């Protein structure tokens, strides 16, 4: 959450002068915990790989890494929005495939006719629509997000296979491939798009009323409703954005491959959830940042990239990523347990006599 306001000079004790108590110190640790969990892991990985290989810190490899991780990072940041509201979106992998195939078919059919931009707009509209329907079912019919998006995972994949007849859509025109394969200032377009998504989402989550509502809904939907937060609209908005971002990733992937592959994006939803969790998001809602999801995707990307450079069996890499998820969540739980055993912050109370607060901290 807004780190700037939390630790800045504005956060002085409210009504009396006191030494910064243990709670303030812990707040700083909390802020690091929320979102920047991944930084130490990231530093260790980068240093280790730089020492172990000659090729890791080369421009060529970094460019490669940026291309590999960008699509995952975009999906992960969309997934994060849903996770922040206590939801989950299993349909994003299938939406990646659907979006890519729709864009590919549109440019293929109208090759030379319609400009590429129409193909992109159509693909993104369909993706956002899938997300919006997910959100409507969750918000209005109160269906569990897991089930709703499991349904759309199948529906979107089936639609993709129907539309493409199960075959890869190719060849695609040069203008379409240029979207993902071009670069600005020597940095691949894919990474620029990722950065734009990161900056816009970080701003929206921490500086706007909408962002505040996303965290409030994830923290306690009932309290948010009583406080006047439009809970349904918030839920629909996060699912729509998750679908939209999966659609962006689908277009970029199809463009990068110059192919509309109907099975593209399979199991990406799990990679996206993994990136969010490694980046400090909690599936219980209201914890996590866009930067965390980005860093989570970056860590997984570096692990895969480093593994390839070192010639490590990719099967071992899967084990390593699985273990990393468990470690990230275990660290989170340890923090919660430590917070529960912390002395009572109430100056007029003895330590420990604090049932409601402790319950809340343990969540």
């Amino acid at each position, binding site marked *: 959450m807004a780190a700037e306001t939390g630790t800045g000079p*504005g956060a002085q004790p409210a009504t009396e002068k006191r030494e910064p108590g243990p709670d303030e110190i812990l*707040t700083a640790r909390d802020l690091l915990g929320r979102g920047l969990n991944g930084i130490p892991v990231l530093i260790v990985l980068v240093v280790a790989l730089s020492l172990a290989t000659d090729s890791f810190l080369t421009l060529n490899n970094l460019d490669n890494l940026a291309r590999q991780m960008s699509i995952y990072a975009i999906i992960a940041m969309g997934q994060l929005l849903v996770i922040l509201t206590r939801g989950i979106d299993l349909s994003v992998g299938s939406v990646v495939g659907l979006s890519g195939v729709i864009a590919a078919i549109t440019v293929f059919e109208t090759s030379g006719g319609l400009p590429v931009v129409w193909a992109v707009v159509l693909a993104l509209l369909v993706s956002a629509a899938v997300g919006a329907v997910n959100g409507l079912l969750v918000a209005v019919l109160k269906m569990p997000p897991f089930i709703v998006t499991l349904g759309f995972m199948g529906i979107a994949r089936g639609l993709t296979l129907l539309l493409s007849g199960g075959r890869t859509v190719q060849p695609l025109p040069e203008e379409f491939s240029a979207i993902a394969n071009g670069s600005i200032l020597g940095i691949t377009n894919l990474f620029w798009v990722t950065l734009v998504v990161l900056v816009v989402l970080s701003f929206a989550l921490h500086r706007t009323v909408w962002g505040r509502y996303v965290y*409030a809904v994830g923290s306690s939907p009932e309290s*948010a409703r009583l*406080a*006047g937060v439009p809970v349904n609209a918030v839920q629909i908005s996060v699912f729509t954005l998750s679908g939209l971002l999966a659609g962006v990733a689908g277009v970029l992937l199809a463009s990068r491959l110059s192919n509309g592959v109907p099975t593209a994006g399979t199991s990406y939803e799990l990679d996206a959830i993994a990136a969010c969790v490694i980046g400090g998001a909690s599936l219980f809602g209201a914890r996590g940042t866009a930067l965390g999801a980005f860093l989570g995707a970056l860590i997984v990307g570096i692990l895969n990239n480093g593994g390839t450079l070192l010639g490590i069996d990719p099967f071992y890499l899967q084990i390593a990523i699985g273990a990393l998820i468990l470690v990230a969540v275990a660290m989170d739980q340890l923090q919660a347990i430590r917070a529960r055993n912390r002395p009572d912050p109430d100056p007029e109370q003895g330590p420990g006599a604090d049932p*409601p607060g402790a319950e809340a*901290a343990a969540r």
Partner: protein
Amino acid sequence: MASPEQPVLELHGVNKSFGAVHVLHDVDLAVYPGQVTALVGDNGAGKSTLIKCIAGIHAADSGQIRFNGSPVSIGSPRDAAQLGIEIVYQDLALADNLDVTQNMFLGREITSGPVLDEATMERKARETLTRLSVRTLSSVRQLVASLSGGQRQTVAIAKAVLWDSKVVILDEPTAALGVAQTRQVLDLVRRLAETGHGVILVSHNMNDVLEVADRIAVLYLGRIAAEVEAAEVTQNQVVELITSGRSGELGLAAHNGANL
């Protein structure tokens, strides 16, 4: 302080049924600014229904609600909030993962353009806490999850008075608290009245009620059995009113007493 003769909130003949169950019978109630009006009654007497009618969560079937002397209709919690009626729920309705300031402004954030105005919200939160002489919170940027039960209650009450509210309804504010925290919250309830708010205190705890209330309204099976000055009754009388609807001269006419 406004003249105590003019109630800030008045209920006249309020009735409410849920299906065949007649929960509130012709309830009259007056809440005066600068006073704590305790609303007591046994489980099922209709306390919750009554405050929900005032807060706009339920619509009364019949009867009149007057606010500052003029009749009003309260159809939704938003209407109530616009009049300046705020309710502090028993479970407090706070978001654990947001901090004190964020909770106090939740649903009514101050913005400058599209951006949250954190500095103003933080300042106003601090001002409100200072006005209520709250000294138990070290920072308005603490997460609510890290607060004790008494501190959480304090935040919920401060949230209710942030908006120049006139009437504050507190639903069992000390139910889950220890001795020292109950002390803090009761002091805060007194200060709410001293700052000119009309306070409705719903409570089961007779010690709390007799300590902070100026007036006591007793609900018995959906009727107001008595509305008395707290100084004029004993704890035994209040308990009798709650359990049987009458106590000596006070209370409802005995149902079977008419024949005697």
